[in-house]
């Protein structure tokens, strides 16, 4: 019979269907189980980054100048605050039922009023809330706010379902009576946190309100879109996919860095009272600390990454999304995706990061920066206990060891700050530089006026510093470091005469015995005295302008400029990328200009260039590029040979002897530097012809017999002469910090 056969056929179809399903289940649960399991682990996982320690900046002896220290940061999760803090719960209930955003501050200001308005709520009002999820949110928040137990919670749900019109104050009178005290206690907990954070009471709550507004904007948009469609409380099925993604994003945004570098007391309060301060959590982070007050201009600063640095990560993120959407990515695209993901996780800047903004911090950013670590934990959608699945430890940044000697640097700064006896009470504008003659290591580079880290931290003080710097009437210019990028690059004056001397000797224009008559004046240039018939050595000793002006004339424009260039002027020394090179401009062959160039007037230089030149004279006639960094991590930067200036040893010894004579019986004979074993040259570069507005220079090296360090210092625009700043050199050379360098 046909019906019978067809029933058997149906049975066969049923069996076949079951068989197919059985095969499928076997394939999924036995053959591919591991793949699905790892896929499952990837879902619902929480990704956390672990900060790296930024490399330290050390002085040449390994003393810390800038280091990352462990500190505490305060994180905040709005969702947890809203559902567990009484103020959050009250704000949530009232906002939903009143149809406006009721701020936490408003509730904190008036706990009694809130208790009254919540007491007036009826279950029917909750039942009338239009959006389903909001409706249940209001009920759950109310139950939590009133601390209803499970049975009472169910009772409340039943009352909502019944649309009861009795107010809450009647239904749960005792609970409502407790409410003002609970709200006030919640407010006081936050005020205690404010006090420990050194802020006015209510600040934290205000910030939470601001954050909440930002989060709610998104939700508001969603709700209004639904309302426009006139849809029901439930979300349209077509929306759910998009909404789900949005909600996920929001969750990610919700855990935020609230404050970094908080005090131990504040961190302890939050950690000890998770139930009193829900939503807050303490995490460990890094804070950059500097040895004060040293060289902010040179060492530099760190701050939140710049927008373009952050934009890089954003670009990667977009590209990752693009690649992730591809159905069948090629091998290269797969590789690119993996690389970009790694970069995003470990390398690229995130808003919580810092990046070097200036100085060494900026220059060596790539070295100092480490790579972030991360961990992936499995978490439930509600947060809660986590299980670590995968992690990578952070790689700390590498240390940068500078050539600077911290003590010496401080000694130089002290010397500059203590002023000069000839300029009592007047702050010095100038710089001191110290260079190791054998290596070109810059041991110290101090300048005044400057600013300190404290100025950088305090916006008001920083504004004041900037105002001074931008003031056209003020010559202070604290933002320019006079050792290597002076705002007004100074003329070297007589310290330049060594260049003129060597150029003339090498070209055979003079020999050590050639005499020239100094009558006190040459062209418009005047001399300090009438020196009479003098040779080169004496001219150097007494710093005779007539003699060197005459040499300038004889050498001519090309020879002068070439020699200056050969001795390192007009180009950076290699110390810092923001160095000012100075100018060697010489407009014409005009004799007047040649004479002035010959005595170091028309060109501009930096103290570092001068110190380098004296270092070359002091050592073996090699001009070494200066360096600021000795080693990066464990890698010692190789020393560079420098350029051999090809000064004959005869000429070199003539120069050295004359520099020795300067401090012995010449312009600096009263300085006491001879006794300290130094040699050097004074210089006075007139800014105007009256002789009361000069750059006063002193440059030299020590010890004379076996030179170890070369130095150059100048004071900007003062009514004194080179010989008047020798007390600074004396103070420096006799300081304990320099002593180890002077020993043979």
């Amino acid at each position, binding site marked *: 019979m*046909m*019906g*019978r056969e*067809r*029933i*058997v056929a*149906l*049975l066969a179809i*049923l*069996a076949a*269907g*079951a068989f*197919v*399903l*059985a095969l*499928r*289940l*076997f394939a*999924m*649960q*036995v053959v*591919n*189980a591991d*793949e*699905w*399991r790892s*896929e*499952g682990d990837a*879902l*619902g996982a929480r990704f956390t980054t672990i900060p790296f320690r930024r490399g330290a900046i050390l002085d040449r002896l390994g003393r810390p100048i800038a280091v990352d220290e462990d500190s505490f940061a305060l994180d905040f999760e709005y969702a947890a605050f809203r559902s567990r803090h009484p103020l959050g719960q009250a704000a949530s209930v009232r906002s939903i039922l009143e149809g406006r955003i009721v701020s936490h501050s408003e509730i904190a200001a008036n706990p009694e009023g809130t208790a009254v308005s919540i007491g007036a709520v009826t279950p029917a009002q909750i039942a009338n809330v239009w959006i389903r999820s909001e409706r249940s949110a209001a009920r759950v928040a109310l139950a939590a706010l009133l601390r209803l137990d*499970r049975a009472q*919670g*169910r009772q409340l*749900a039943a009352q909502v379902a019944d649309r009861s019109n009795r107010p809450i104050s009647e239904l749960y009178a005792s609970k409502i009576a407790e409410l003002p005290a609970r709200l006030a206690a919640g407010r006081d907990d936050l005020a205690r946190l404010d006090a420990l954070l050194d802020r006015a009471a209510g600040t934290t709550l205000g910030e939470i309100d601001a954050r909440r507004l930002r989060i709610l904007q998104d939700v508001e948009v969603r709700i209004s879109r639904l309302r426009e469609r006139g849809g*029901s*409380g*439930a*979300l*349209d*099925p*077509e929306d*759910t*996919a*998009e909404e*789900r*993604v949005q909600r*996920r994003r929001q969750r990610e945004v919700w855990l935020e860095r609230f404050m970094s570098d908080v005090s131990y007391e504040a961190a302890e309060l939050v950690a000890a009272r998770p139930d009193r301060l829900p939503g807050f959590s303490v995490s460990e982070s890094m804070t950059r600390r500097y040895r004060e007050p040293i060289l902010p201009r040179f060492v530099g600063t760190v701050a939140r990454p710049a927008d373009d640095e952050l934009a890089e990560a954003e670009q990667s993120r977009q590209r990752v*999304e693009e690649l*992730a*959407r*591809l*159905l*069948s990515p090629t091998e290269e695209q797969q590789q690119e995706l993996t690389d970009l993901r790694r970069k995003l996780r470990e390398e690229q800047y995130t808003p919580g990061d810092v990046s070097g903004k200036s100085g060494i911090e900026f220059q060596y950013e790539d070295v100092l920066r480490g790579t972030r670590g991360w961990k992936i934990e*499995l*978490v*439930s*959608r*509600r947060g809660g206990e986590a299980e670590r699945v995968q992690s990578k430890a952070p790689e700390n940044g590498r240390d940068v060891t500078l050539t600077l000697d911290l003590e010496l640097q401080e000694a130089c700064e002290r010397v500059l700050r203590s002023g000069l006896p000839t300029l009592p009470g007047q702050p010095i504008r100038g710089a001191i530089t110290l260079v190791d003659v054998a290596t070109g290591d810059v041991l110290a580079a101090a300048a005044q006026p400057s600013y300190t880290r404290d100025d950088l931290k305090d916006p008001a003080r920083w504004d004041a510093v900037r105002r001074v710097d931008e003031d056209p009437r003020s010559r202070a210019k604290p933002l320019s470091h006079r050792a290597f990028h002076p705002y007004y690059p100074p003329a070297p004056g007589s310290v330049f005469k060594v260049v003129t001397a060597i150029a003339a000797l090498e070209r055979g224009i003079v020999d050590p015995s050639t005499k020239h008559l100094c009558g006190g004046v040459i062209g418009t240039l005047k001399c300090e005295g009438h020196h009479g018939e003098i040779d080169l050595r004496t001219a150097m000793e007494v710093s005779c302008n007539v003699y060197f002006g005459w040499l300038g004339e004889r050498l001519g424009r090309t020879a002068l400029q070439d020699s200056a260039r050969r001795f390192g002027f007009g180009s950076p020394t290699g110390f810092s990328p923001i160095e000012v090179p100075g100018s060697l401009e010489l407009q014409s062959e005009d004799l007047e200009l040649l004479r002035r160039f010959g005595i170091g007037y028309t060109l501009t230089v930096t103290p570092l260039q001068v110190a380098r030149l004296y270092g070359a004279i002091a050592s073996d006639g090699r001009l070494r590029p200066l360096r600021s960094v000795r080693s990066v991590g464990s890698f010692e930067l190789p020393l560079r040979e420098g350029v051999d200036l090809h000064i004959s040893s005869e000429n070199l010894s003539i120069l050295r002897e004359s520099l020795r004579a300067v401090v012995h019986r010449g312009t600096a004979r009263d300085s006491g530097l001879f006794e300290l074993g130094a040699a050097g040259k004074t210089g006075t570069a007139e800014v105007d012809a009256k002789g009361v507005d000069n750059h006063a220079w002193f440059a030299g090296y020590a010890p004379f017999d076996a030179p170890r360090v070369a130095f150059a210092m100048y004071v900007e625009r003062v009514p004194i002469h080179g010989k008047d700043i020798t007390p600074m050199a004396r103070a420096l050379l006799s300081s304990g910090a320099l002593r180890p360098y002077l020993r043979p």
Partner: protein
Amino acid sequence: MKLTERLAIARERLGAPAIVVVAAAAALASIGLVVCASVDHASEKSSSYFTLQAGRLALGVPACLVAFWIRPRWLRAQAYGFYVACAAMLIAVLLFGRVVNGSRRWLEIGGFLRFQPSDLAKLAASLAIARICAIRARAESFGGVLCALAAAAVPAALILKEPDLGTAIVFIPSALAIVAIAGAKRSHLLIVGALLVTGAALLVLYGLHGYQRDRIEMWLRQGSMTAAEKQAQGYHLHRSMVAIGSGGLFGYGWAEGPQNQRDLLPERHTDFAFAVIAEEFGLVGAFVVLFLEAALPAGLLILALRVRESFSRLAIVGIAVQIGTQALVNMGVATGVFPTTGIALPLISYGGTSAIVTLVSIAVALNLAGHAEPVLAQEMFSPEEEETLLDRTLKPRPRLWNHSRRPATERPRR
């Protein structure tokens, strides 16, 4: 007749397949409660799926006894009446129904009785179509076939409008099976099959909502979903497959499945209950459920084989195919064999109407099988009588068929 007598007779007549059916139903309902308890364990809601579902199942037991006790004759006589009533309720749902999750599926009566008429309509349609096709001559005519299919199409279309594609789909295979078993000509079946395929194709091409089309697309390339799609259009499918696949051979254990416990699996107590079972009890648990879900309709079909009386046989087949289709499609959706659609897993998925109606359907089928004359292939009504069926549905029928083999003296008299 007393219920105890009925049960005794039934046991004698129904035999092993019925025991299988009852045992499978009981086992599945218990497993459903286990799933509910596991979902409760993961949920922080104060309401408990376990208690609610247990209460409904408890309500289903007396309903079953009633369904088992009523006379098939009455059932047959009222088949069209039920059908019309259900159709009316479906229309009422579209007009005043309660909206849940974007669909209008619920009817509320008096504020406390809440149910989905679409579930009731499945049973009513089976009975009505069985009655239409019970007459051999009609079943063999093309008009009769079309009439039977139309009877299925009307509630299906109303349910599709709710929208509830999953439930609507179930009507078609059940109607087709009844028509085929009733003796429709092969050519007619082929034509109808071709029409249905065309209709389905048109529906897929033009009639689907955007999200439904997305789901079909995701299903077609389930192996190569992008990360974004796994979070959006392909979310249900992907999560369900992750849950099932990661269950492995023995599963994570009760209330230990990460996808379930972390609230990542959508609709885990209703449409994706199978994924919870597969995740927490592994391949072993999944096979047990698969076996039980297949054994239930298989037992009913075997019972149908013994039944000679047309209406009863066809109604049993209709109910069996409904349950079987639901079970296979639900598990197929969860494992990615079929595109994602919301359809309950019989007796396991949480849901009052569905569970009670499934239990009642099984009871009705057993009732019909237990009463049916095993040897005589008698028609209950003559074709002429059937032509004015709608007028007569409410009137008492002349007794033409002895539904009991007991001596005439013991027959109930009217």
